């Protein structure tokens, strides 16, 4: 994988206004690399939803992005409270977000479904009290 570019981002927790900075940076980098716009949009949306989730639920986290000539691989890791029932969390409309987050335009239970919808590969692992890891891949 000598052609791969690896980027790491720290997503600050509890600062909702800054959520999306990592996704914005990736979007600009992919655009400069001449990646097809449709793939860029898929990466941007799925990663943005992941960032928002990290801020809302997990006091931030880390995102590692690997860009290869064929795809973008995103690994989102947090040490938040974890998810007890992943199947339930994946249902559109299910949310545990606090009321104040809903007033900010999120927390409608669409984050994880959107992440799955926009990525070509999606997997999620979580342990209560330990954290959550989401892996997503978007092919060009």
């Amino acid at each position, binding site marked *: 994988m000598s052609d791969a570019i690896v980027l790491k981002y720290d997503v600050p927790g509890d600062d909702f*206004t800054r959520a999306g900075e990592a996704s914005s940076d990736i979007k600009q980098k992919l655009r400069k690399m001449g990646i097809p716009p449709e793939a860029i949009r898929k990466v941007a949306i799925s990663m943005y939803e992941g960032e928002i989730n990290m801020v809302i639920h997990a006091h931030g986290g880390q995102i590692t992005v690997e860009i290869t000539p064929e795809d973008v691989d995103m690994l989102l890791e947090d040490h938040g409270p974890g998810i007890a029932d992943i199947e339930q969390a994946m249902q559109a409309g299910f949310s545990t977000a606090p009321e104040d987050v809903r007033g900010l335009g*999120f927390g409608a239970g669409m984050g994880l479904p959107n992440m799955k919808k926009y990525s070509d590969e999606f997997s999620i692992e979580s342990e209560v009290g330990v954290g959550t890891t989401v892996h997503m891949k978007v092919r060009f």
Partner: protein
Amino acid sequence: MTIREIQKILDAEVCCGEELLDREVHTACGSDLMSDVLAFVKDQAVLLTGLCNPQAIRTAEMMDIVCLVFVRSKVPTDTMIELARENDLVILSTKLAMFPSCGLLYENGLRGGSRI
């Protein structure tokens, strides 16, 4: 429809992006829920929203939305305007509420986005 036409129809104030008013808009979306906006791909869309915070700008950025309309006289902060400028996003502010704003644009031929 161009952004300039939208501005006229909604009698809106241009908060930023004056030089981009002749850009074409193909579809529209009205929502205060950003995750709902993110769920549907729209082509060269305008987003009408009552949610006046930086995440509305970020959502527009991720979706390649070309114009954001704040309804009910909401006005963006300087930080939001700066963020919009970085992304070539036009921001309009109208006194009209969400329902009449959407209705007027629909009446003038603008339609919703498509599902993927």
